[in-house]
């Protein structure tokens, strides 16, 4: 019965999750985890958050963070003990990589600073770079 109740509020909380955006909840959980004195369990995180989140929701978010490589876990008895790996900025970097990796296989939407190099480009580029750094600036050189 307790499980049933937890499941029910889990559904409620997941509706709430969608409203607030996954990124925000992940940030909150990660922030809580970073204040932990050491490896802690999901219950500790849930209490720390004090947001009325269901236990299952917290575990779901922690599992998602684990899949992203943002937290590590180790078995502690029947549950896991969690420790943060990346901070919030690191998490943003992970999310961005995911966006870019999903984009990479097709036409680029975001114009990157440099595109990939073809065969032969690397040698050509090294020659040009040598030219760019060796050549002494001529009269009025740099500003031309």
């Amino acid at each position: 019965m307790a499980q049933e109740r937890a499941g029910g509020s889990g559904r409620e909380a997941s509706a709430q999750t969608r409203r607030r955006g996954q990124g925000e909840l992940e940030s909150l959980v990660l922030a809580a985890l970073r204040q932990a004195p050491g490896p802690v369990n999901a219950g500790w995180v849930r209490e720390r958050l004090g947001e009325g989140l269901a236990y299952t929701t917290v575990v779901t978010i922690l599992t998602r963070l684990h899949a992203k490589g943002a937290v590590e876990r180790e078995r502690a008895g029947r549950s896991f003990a969690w420790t943060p790996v990346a901070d919030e900025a690191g998490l943003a970097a992970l999310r961005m990589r995911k966006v870019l990796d999903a984009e990479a296989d097709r036409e680029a939407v975001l114009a990157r600073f440099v595109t990939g190099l073809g065969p032969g480009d690397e040698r050509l580029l090294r020659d040009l770079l040598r030219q760019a750094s060796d050549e002494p600036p001529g009269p009025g050189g740099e500003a031309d």
Partner: protein
Amino acid sequence: MGVFVFLPLILPLTAWPVARLAEQHLHPRAATRLLSAVAAVLAVCSTLCLALLMVVGTAQLPGNPLPDGWSDPEVREALPYDEVAGTAAIPALFAVLLSCGRATWRHGRVRRRAAQALAGGGVPASAGGGVAVLPDRTPYAYALPGSRRARRAGRIVVTAGMLAGLDSAERSALLAHERAHLTGRHHRFLLAVQLAARANPFLRPLRTAVSYTAERWADEEAAAAVGSRRAVARAIGKAALISHAAPVPVSASALAGFAVAGPVPRRVAALLAPAPAAGSWPPVRTAVGLAAWGAAAGAAVSALSSANSAVTLFLVLRAATPL
């Protein structure tokens, strides 16, 4: 009208030599604007032409929802009536609209997701604002355009891995380059040519050309902003070399297949050469002038031809519609 109705579908072929010449000889700003405009006009005309063919094609099909008058012998007499072309235009137009719709939707989604990735907070913003430095060892940098509707300002996204590989002058050059993309709203040109290339495959060389000239445009702006062409050249060269571990995109290897240097070395070489003249249009007598004027003439003829077909078709169909 006869065969002239097909002209807007074929005229984009004029874009091939034009793209090449404009890319090499015009100032990158002028080249980007000219080629994007040519691509947009030719794409709209080509799609319009396809739509006209489709209307004629559909009117022939039994059980179509169009007025019966549209398939009268008089209408078929007046319009370029070709069973094969008319029927083929139906799936073609459908494919074009679907493809353009998907490209637009994907463009919006990538921008939205990238903005969401930064929205969690905790990303250190350097002085001056608008620059998000991500703690990632993979070197990359790009400009994330803002959105007026979502009230998001444009941001420059750069990783710590990229900044670590550059000295301070080169970092300024990189930021100036990305800032030029944002202030020049370059993503609009890129989206326009992408959609054009989907509307008519003959316009693909324009897409490749504009994605190069838009980078060159930002390079030139960056060179002016930091006051050193060489610093920008070094920044591009170093960034490309430290990113080289990443797999080569298809477009770059396709270029290499023609034994032409890829876009990155060409950009660096262009920066080591004197600044391009930002003058007006080249004179007609030179090859460049001929190409530029040829492009303008081709676009104009295509537009006129499409408009002519559209008006004729409209008049004929109105006359044939029983009221």
